[in-house]
């Protein structure tokens, strides 16, 4: 028992034998892995392997569309977040998500960051200002936008918009941020900034990153999970996955022989 308790402290999420169905199509098959606190975990694998599907199970994004079904469990703070009674609003704000393309809302920079706070009925202007500045600083965007907080967020560059989305997510104090190929639409310089940011942010939050880019997984992540056709092939410390993996398939994938 003490061992289990210790594990719970270390892991933000524990995925146990997770199956996921889009209608009758089984897209995740018996996935089991931990998501360690204050680490970067990368989910890699060829297109259609289920890595994004898995990521979207964590914040129950699939519930927005009809006909999707989960089996198994994802344990967080001792409860299965796949249970019918799970409060999705609280769950989603504690597991923030950053998408492939930047998704600034058509409103000012300030209002974008304040969005989640206003949903929580934060009306105190001083507090809002303080949180907006703090979040923008955390996302390494403050210096670039501090004089244009009232301008539309749509006027920022792509890389700035993606950091804005990260700041918007951080503003509601999440436990984790889920990145869904969040640098694939960005130029190399912006990508570098976001990667640096992920490594910096893991001091405060847990990071899960779906990525197509194996070098990126190797550079930034502490743990890496390789998926293939809905199954978890191998999960381990990143250096092991990339240097001495247990499975032949993992070795071939990280060497670029398939995928």
């Amino acid at each position, binding site marked *: 028992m003490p061992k289990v308790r210790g594990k719970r402290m270390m892991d933000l999420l524990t995925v146990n034998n997770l199956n996921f169905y889009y209608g009758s199509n089984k897209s995740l098959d018996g996935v089991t892995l931990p998501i360690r606190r204050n680490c970067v975990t990368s989910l890699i694998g060829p297109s259609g392997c289920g890595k994004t599907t898995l990521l979207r199970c964590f*914040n129950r*994004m699939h519930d*927005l569309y*009809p006909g999707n079904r989960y089996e198994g469990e994802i344990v967080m703070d001792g409860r299965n977040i796949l249970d019918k009674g799970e409060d999705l*609003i*609280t769950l*989603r*704000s504690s597991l*923030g*998500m950053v*998408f*492939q*393309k930047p*998704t600034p*809302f*058509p*409103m000012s920079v300030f209002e974008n960051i304040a*969005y*989640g706070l206003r*949903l*929580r009925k934060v009306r105190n202007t001083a507090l809002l200002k303080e949180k907006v500045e703090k979040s923008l600083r955390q996302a390494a965007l403050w210096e670039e936008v501090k004089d244009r907080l009232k301008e539309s967020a749509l006027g920022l560059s792509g890389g700035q918009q993606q950091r804005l*989305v990260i700041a*918007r*997510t951080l503003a*509601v104090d999440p436990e984790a941020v889920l990145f869904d190929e969040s640098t694939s639409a960005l130029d190399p310089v912006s990508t570098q900034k976001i990667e640096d940011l992920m490594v910096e942010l893991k001091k405060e939050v847990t990071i899960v990153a779906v990525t197509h880019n194996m070098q990126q997984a190797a550079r930034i992540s502490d743990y890496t999970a390789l998926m293939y056709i809905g199954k978890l092939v191998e999960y381990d410390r990143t250096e092991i996955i990339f240097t001495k993996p247990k499975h032949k398939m993992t070795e071939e994938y990280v060497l670029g022989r398939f995928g």
Partner: protein
Amino acid sequence: MSADHRKNLLFKALTCLAAVSVLGIVVGILAVILMESFPALKHFGIGAFLGGRDWNYTREIYGALRPLTGTVVSTGIALLAAVPLSLGTAVFLTEICPHRLRGAFGAAIELLAAIPSIIYGMWGLFVLAPFLDEWVQPAVGSALGGVPLIGSFFVTKSAGGVNLFSASLVLAVMIIPFITSIARDAFEQVPDVLKESSYALGATRWETVRKVVSAQSASAVGGGVIIAMGRALGETMAVAYVIGNRHASLDSLFSPYTTITSVIANEFNEAGGIQLSSLFTLALVLFIANFLALGVGRRLVKGKEK
């Protein structure tokens, strides 16, 4: 080769002719309206005509103020009633309605747009007007009639339900399908990932619609409302049936009144001289207003789609 070439030239010439003739019709109509309205404009002056209260056959003084007021007020009430209903329907269709019912529900609403306006007029006259007269007007009158200054505006002064309010509600029903379908298209244009970004921050469906979907589609929806406004301004038969056609001061929402279109429809056949020219001038005002509404509305609707 040369035969092909000749065919090609003929083809170009024919399509060009078709396009030019359509343009010619528009220009021709505008020219006729301008020419025919010139005597009245010259006789009364633009300001005096637009601001003139009288529509007097014996003294031959014609002013646009009452028909203009009727058109503006009826269109305004129609928009007030139709916009919330249409937006609510569009939100339901895009965000809440189960997917398998969306097609049927949407088609039913588009069917409203396929009903000829004369049928709306008949419905307004035989069903809506008596209903309002019996059930709604007395209630509104007793509720608001005692309010100082504006109270008498809500009191029924002539029976039958043929009045400005009935006409406005018929107009509202007629423009609902247009606003609904433009708003639905605009809401559907909002990328899923933008909505997901809102949900991912812990927003509810209502919060996402109210804050993100509305901001993203505001200009297209605004354009749709303006296009619908243009339709309401120009709608003729349904209004002519139920408005009562009375040239008098607007003493109550529930009194018969007049609009630009209804006065033209009612008097055009028997009018001559300066009265006919005055009717053409009203037509010119309507033409310009409609042209502007359609132009601005289209631009707004298209602008966001890019």
